[in-house]
Every structure is written in C-alpha cells, then in structure tokens.
C-alpha cells in the first residue's frame, strides 16, 4: 500500500512507567474516516496528539506522505500545521475568550500568512456558512455562543487552511445529546463535500458508526482490534470490543 497518507510505525509514548501509547502501528488512507475508540486511559487522546506532532514520542515514527514528521523542523513543520488540523473536545475551553469569533477562525490563515486581511475576512465568512452559522457571528465573542455553536466555530477554524487531514478529538462528547446529533451530521456532510481524511476519536462506539469507514479499538495503549466499521460492530473478534458493544445502553427501535 504505497498511497497511504499516514504510516504509523511502532509509536510509543511513555510517561515514566505508564505506557500511554504502546508500540502502535497502522495506516491511514487518503479520503477515509478512521474511528479511534477507547475508554479513559486507553491512550487515544495521546495518540491523536502524537500523529499531529503536538507532543513528541518516546519511540517510533509517523510518516506523512512518506516523510517522518518527527524529523521535521522550521518551515517544514510549519507547513505541516497548515495541512493537519485538530478539532478539540471542549467547546468551552478551546476558544480564546478574549478573541472575536472571526479572528479565531481566521487566525490559522494569519499565522501562515496565507492571505491578506480582506481575503481572510471573506474566507471567514465562507467558513461560517459552511458550518451553518450566520455571518454576523464573526463579531461575537465565544461566551455569547452555545456549546454547539462554539463547536461549529472549532470546526470552521480547523477547516480554514484547507487541511488534508483532521483529527477530531471527541468533538461531541461535551455536548448535549440533541446537539451531538447535529454536529455529527455536519461532520458527515463536510467530510464528503470537502473530501477530508479524518481521524475521529471517541469513547463511544455508537458515535463513530455513521462516520467511520474503518475502526480501531484501543485499550491500555495498544490497538486491540482494527477492521472495517461494519465488521467491528457486527463481528468483533476481541473480547474488549465485545464488552464495549455490550455495555452501550441500547433502546428498542421505535414502532
């Protein structure tokens, strides 16, 4: 498989004696949505941050387009930030409370000097429309928006530099159930519209099932199961996956 977007090889992150990520290897193919599911302490959040080189590994390599990202410095690393984005979990703390929404969304473009101020303004407006928020939100502050709206801003920010790959780190876990469904629907739309490659991190298997092409299940720093989404859900091979599926509260189908 020579066309993979990412190749993760033997990646480990140890904090003292704790193996947050323990010798993990897998590929991410362009255009696919990969679900990464695990409970607290599984290492999924750490893995997400490693792939974006937001933290450094204890050992192992992450190849992005065949280049080891941990060897990148300076302008190459900056270029990486343009092509790889992240959507954070908590809409209440991931936006700078002192910045206007428009500035928050446009900041990546400003940092990378990708366009002039008027062009950035236009782009911010496009992005707001993309995430179904009104244009005038550009002048508001985060505390004036609801959780769901703030999360949309986080998504718009992640999309601003036209990234090739996005890590969505539990993007709906902090939201009310009804709002979760809306945001998931938005992500499904965006990923096909913009042909994104997505790593969707979640603790709830049910949340990824509509989005993910393939699913990885993590426990204690290791990947215990991986495969096409349907297979993992209907014919799980690992006992932990079976336990996860069994523990999820189900409701009967409405009449």
């Amino acid at each position: 498989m020579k066309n993979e977007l990412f190749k993760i090889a033997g990646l480990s992150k140890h904090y003292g004696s704790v193996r947050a990520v323990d010798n993990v290897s897998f590929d991410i193919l362009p255009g696919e949505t990969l679900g990464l599911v695990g409970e607290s302490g599984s290492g999924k959040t750490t893995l997400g941050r490693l792939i974006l080189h937001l933290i450094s590994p204890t050992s192992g390599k992450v190849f992005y387009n065949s280049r080891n990202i941990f060897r990148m410095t300076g302008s190459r690393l900056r270029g990486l930030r343009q092509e790889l984005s992240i959507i954070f979990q908590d809409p209440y703390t991931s936006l700078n409370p002192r910045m206007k929404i428009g500035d928050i969304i446009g900041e990546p473009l400003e940092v990378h000097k990708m366009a002039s101020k008027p062009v950035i303004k236009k782009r911010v407006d496009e992005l707001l429309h993309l995430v179904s928020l009104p244009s005038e939100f550009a002048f508001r502050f985060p505390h004036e928006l609801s959780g769901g709206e703030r999360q949309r801003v986080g998504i718009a920010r992640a999309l601003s530099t036209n990234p090739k790959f996005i890590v969505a780190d539990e993007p709906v876990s902090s939201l009310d159930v009804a709002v979760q469904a809306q945001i998931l629907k938005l992500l499904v739309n965006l990923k096909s519209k913009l042909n994104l490659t997505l790593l969707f991190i979640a603790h709830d298997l049910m949340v990824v099932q509509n989005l993910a092409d393939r699913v990885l299940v993590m426990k204690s720093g290791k990947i215990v199961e991986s495969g096409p989404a349907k297979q993992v859900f209907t014919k799980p091979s690992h006992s932990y996956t079976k336990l996860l599926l069994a523990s999820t509260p189900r409701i009967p189908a409405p009449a």
Partner: protein
Amino acid sequence: MLKINDLSVIYRKEEATVRAVDGVGLSVEGGKTLGIVGESGSGKSTVALSILKLISYPGQIESGEILWNEKDVLRMSDDDLRKLRGGEISMIFQDPFSSLNPVFTIGDQIQEAVTLHGGNSVVELLKSVHMPDPEAVAKKYPHELSGGMRQRAMIAMALAGSPKLLIADEPTTALDVTIQAEILKLLKELQSKFKMSIILITHNLALVHGFCDDVVIMKDGLIVERGAADEIFKKQKEKYTRELIEAIPKPRWK
C-alpha cells in the same frame, strides 16, 4: 412513598432570578425505579436536591411539598431532616472524586455514615457493592482508587442507613461506558436485595431503558412528558421527547 406536589425552585443570580423548577409534580412507589431525564439546565438535578432539602443560597425552594410517607420534608424539623438524610433517603452524585473527602480513608468515611445511621460494618457494606478486596480498600484514600471503585464506595456509604429510597444524580456520567454498565447492574441488584426505590437522574434517555419502570422528561424546569419506560420508547406524545429519542445513535447494522 414519595410524592412531590407543585415544586418550584428559584435561583437568584445577579442579573435575574431563574426559575429552575416550575410547578413539578411526581411520585415514586416502593421498590420502583423512576428516571428523570433532561438536558443540562432542565432542572432535573435541582428536583433531586430538593427532595432532601439540599438547596442553598442562591437557590431557594419557593413553593410546593415533598411528601415522604405522608410527611412533608420541606417542613420537617432539622433533627428529623438529619435523620432522613443518609437514613431512609440516601443520595449519590455524579463525581465521586469531589463528593469524597480526599483526606480521609474510604473506611473512615463509610464508618462515619455507619455511626450516624447504624447498620452493617464497613467491610460488609463494601462487600455488598462487590468491591474487590474490601479490607484493603477501606484503608485507601479516594485518589488511590479508580473512578468505578470510588463510585462503589459512595454507594456503600449511601447504603449504610438501609435507605428505602436512593437518589442517583447522574451516577455514571463521569465513568467509562463499561464501568457504567457494571454500576447500573449493581444498583439493580441492590434494589431487589434491599427493596429500595431508585430515582435515576440522567441526560441520557437510553440509560432508562431496562433500568427504570417510569420516566419523566424535563425541559426548562417543567415536566414535558411522563409515562412508563417501555411505553415512551414505543410512542411519544411530545416533539421534544421524539427529538431526544432520535438523537440517540442507533446501531447502523443488525
């Protein structure tokens, strides 16, 4: 056994007074489980806290009555109220980390409940919540235990006074889904063993299925819909309830 009539609770915030609970009425019978479901801000936790008159400034119980075996909790003497709390009615909360005192061992804290309300020994209580290695755990401090174990410890504390009603305020929200399933199973087991009623407060309507007999849906301080748990999933009267059910992710494949 528990009957709430026309309960209203307000919170005095700087800008305005918020009506957190607005004329709510419900009842729970012996041995049955009631689910109170709502999103954040719906007032569900406020109702739960009111049952034991645990609302304090800036909150205030404005009106209504809470009848426990025909006696109004809101008009009880302080002594009777103290006996009731942790005695016949017990409560467990969402975040066991902040409800447990970090400087006392688990054993000491459960012992405190036992001393106040009588009942079994600390180790017996820990055994009844299936705590692995109860004698050793009793000597540990809260931060040395996992989230699931802390929640078990809190349940053990709540059981000390042999309660007839257990109020569980989002007991599993902070826990992993596998632990959540275990804790809910434990609560069901304890319910039949000790013949308790349970009120489960949650934002997750899916939890109610298979756990509660009756359910009440709250929004903005009001009860929007109520009914038997199995009926609600089959047929909903209100649009809001239908929205809540539709929002629950359903299995994509069979």
